[in-house]
């Protein structure tokens, strides 16, 4: 390879990497602008209680069945596995406390957020994306209505408020699933099962789990709205935005959960 072509190769490489970095920074900037303005405008007029109630219903009430079903079976399957593992050294009664700690600290908020992402986050991206390609977003702007205030603010608030509620229900129903599998099905003593939960589980676990769920709810709604508002093209663009909303939110929630948990442990807030 000649010196000239080597120089060209490295120039191209640097340009390619530079362009990719700029793209990532631009996208993160667009997300931060939409999410930040959408959150900030919750504290400034005009207030739109009707839209907020609609979104609370959409994110919360309409996600309830899927959250309860998945929560019950998550607790159940976790109990099956845990009871088998603990049974190897005769500690089956720890099944309840293990399931409770895992669900309340991390699995409840994370799994519940992933379920809500699949149902509500994707729907937000699809709905807003469709509004974008059918000029409804332009129509909002033409009528002097800020689309971020009108569309994003109620959704991020609904995500931040309703996902913790759903997460608490997910954890509760998961514990019921674990109890049903452990006690009537596997024959573990019910009193010991409950006693271990009372012994090892702490309200702080649930408290921080709910804080996490609130953050993940905000993230999934903000990402859904951002992807919807970023749609280009027609139906294909809407489809891509919907898929990307689910993928980006899911990865973000899992990554955030790791760092969040690590931070809480380092700060001594979770032991």
């Amino acid at each position, binding site marked *: 390879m000649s010196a000239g072509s080597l120089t060209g190769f490295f120039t191209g490489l640097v340009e390619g990497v530079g362009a990719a970095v700029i793209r990532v920074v631009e996208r993160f900037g667009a997300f931060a602008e939409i999410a930040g303005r959408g959150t900030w405008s919750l504290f400034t007029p005009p207030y739109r209680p009707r839209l907020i109630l609609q979104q609370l219903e959409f994110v919360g009430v309409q996600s309830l069945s899927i959250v309860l079903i998945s929560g019950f079976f998550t607790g159940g399957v976790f109990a099956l596995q845990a009871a088998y593992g603990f049974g190897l050294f005769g500690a089956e009664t720890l099944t309840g406390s293990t399931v409770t700690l895992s669900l309340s600290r991390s699995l409840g908020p994370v799994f519940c957020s992933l379920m809500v992402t699949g149902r509500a986050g994707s729907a937000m991206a699809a709905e807003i994306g469709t509004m974008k390609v*059918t*000029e409804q977003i*332009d129509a909002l702007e033409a009528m*002097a209505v800020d689309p971020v205030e009108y569309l994003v603010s109620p959704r991020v608030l609904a995500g931040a408020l309703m996902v913790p509620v759903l997460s608490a229900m997910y954890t509760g129903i998961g514990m019921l699933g674990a109890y049903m599998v452990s006690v009537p099905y596997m024959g573990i003593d019910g009193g010991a099962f409950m006693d271990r939960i009372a012994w090892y589980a702490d309200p702080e676990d649930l408290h921080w789990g709910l804080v996490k769920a609130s953050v993940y709810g905000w993230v999934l709604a903000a990402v859904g709205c951002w992807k919807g508002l970023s749609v280009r093209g027609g139906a294909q663009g809407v489809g891509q935005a919907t898929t990307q909303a689910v993928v980006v939110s899911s990865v973000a929630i899992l990554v955030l959960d790791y760092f969040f948990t690590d931070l809480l442990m380092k700060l001594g807030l979770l032991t």
Partner: protein
Amino acid sequence: MSESPFDPQDAAVVFEGVYKAFGAHKVLQGLDLVVPKGKCTVIIGRSGTGKSVTLKHAMGLIKPDAGRVVVLGKELGKLKRDELQRLRLRFGMVFQNAALFDSLSVYENVAFPLREHEKLSEAETLSRVEAVLAQVGLSFAIQKMPSELSGGMRKRVGLARAIIHTPDILLYDEPTTGLDPILTAQIDQLIAETQQNHPGMSSVVVSHDMKGAFLVADYIYMLHQGKVVAQGEPEHFKTTDDPLVRQFVEGRLDGPIGVE
């Protein structure tokens, strides 16, 4: 090409040397155009010549790469977000596909600008919506959803929504595209009536329907390759021997415009 006879200092909208490109695709290439106050201005030209982009510049929905857009004496590029929002309150816009909100009924769609910007009682809102729906002949459709309306009805609802707050400037983006000739005539008639009923209002109609343009226009601009290539009163466009204008007006395949 003749100069615009209108004073830019007292115009509704002024475009001065506006350039806009989307990637490598150059849309506006030095657009100079003056929209006079209180008249109906029609912008004609082939698809893709930048007519709709011009309208979106007027509302500040798109920013020019170069040049100035001045609306009612205010340069859009210098306005802050809240100032631009206040200026937009003086606009109404009828979108090509109506852009009605799917999840809202006709009543809710038309009432939308009032609910957002005017503190009216429900009875007052209903009365204003009924009045404006009567103007566009759609009183019977007040409780329908947009999905239950035909294309022409959707555009009439879009017009009702655009004029409910009596804007100073009303923009129409291809209002008759996709309609049959009878519905086209109906919409053209409605545009003409709306202008007559609101004499102080400045209207801008983007269209390639020459019959409608001659019916509603006080003044016509023709765009080609991102700039104005002809302008004048409708009579001028009927009689000029400018080959660009003749080819477009008569819809001929041969001529300087070319066919892809």
